[in-house]
């Protein structure tokens, strides 16, 4: 889909469309993050490397996913 097409769609629609999409995108981001962190750990990435890749501290990634 073209970018112009998307911005057109967000403009022309009911605000509920954009608001619902944001909620769904946040949940999607959480799922993609959980899957990617698990894979990175399997492949030997350190918590620090994962934190840097996500733009958060090593401690916060470890607190969330470290067990």
């Amino acid at each position, binding site marked *: 889909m073209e970018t112009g097409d*998307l911005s057109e*769609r967000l403009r022309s629609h009911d605000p509920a469309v954009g*608001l*619902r*999409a944001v909620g769904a*995108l946040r949940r999607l981001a959480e*799922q993609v993050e959980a899957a990617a962190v698990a894979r990175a750990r399997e492949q030997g990435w350190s918590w620090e490397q994962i934190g840097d890749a996500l733009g958060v501290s090593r401690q916060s990634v470890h*607190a969330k996913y470290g067990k």
Partner: protein
Amino acid sequence: MFEQFAAGARAAVASALSEATLRGDRRIGTEHLLLGVLHEPGAVRALGSDLESARAALDALDRSALAAVGIDVQGIERPPIPASPKRTPFTSGARAVLPRALTETRKAGSRRITPEHLLLALLDCEQPDPAAELMAQLGIDRTAVRERIRQTGA
């Protein structure tokens, strides 16, 4: 106010918290309360829809919300999301459900808030409230649900 909750209603709220976590949400919303209530068999009978259908309906709503912005998530990996170490507060909509449930309890002349009272309070949610959207997606007939609860005298 949680001291007025019967065991089933407490369990429903605890389940709502785990449903919020499972979905990757940071607050407990009315849709999570509805899922939480569906962990209780009496509420499943009253609503005429079960937990699995409700979870699937929320996923379907997310898929169509994402499709509206051009994202196709068919077949995407859905790993379990770890519980956040931070506390998970209620949304304002979910907070508003609790005093309404208490009103339902008083109307029924009961002393304790049951999962059915929570369900009755959730039935009053109006779109765009997330629980209302979920019930619409599930095709819930609210009048019929209220009637079933009245008949069982919960």
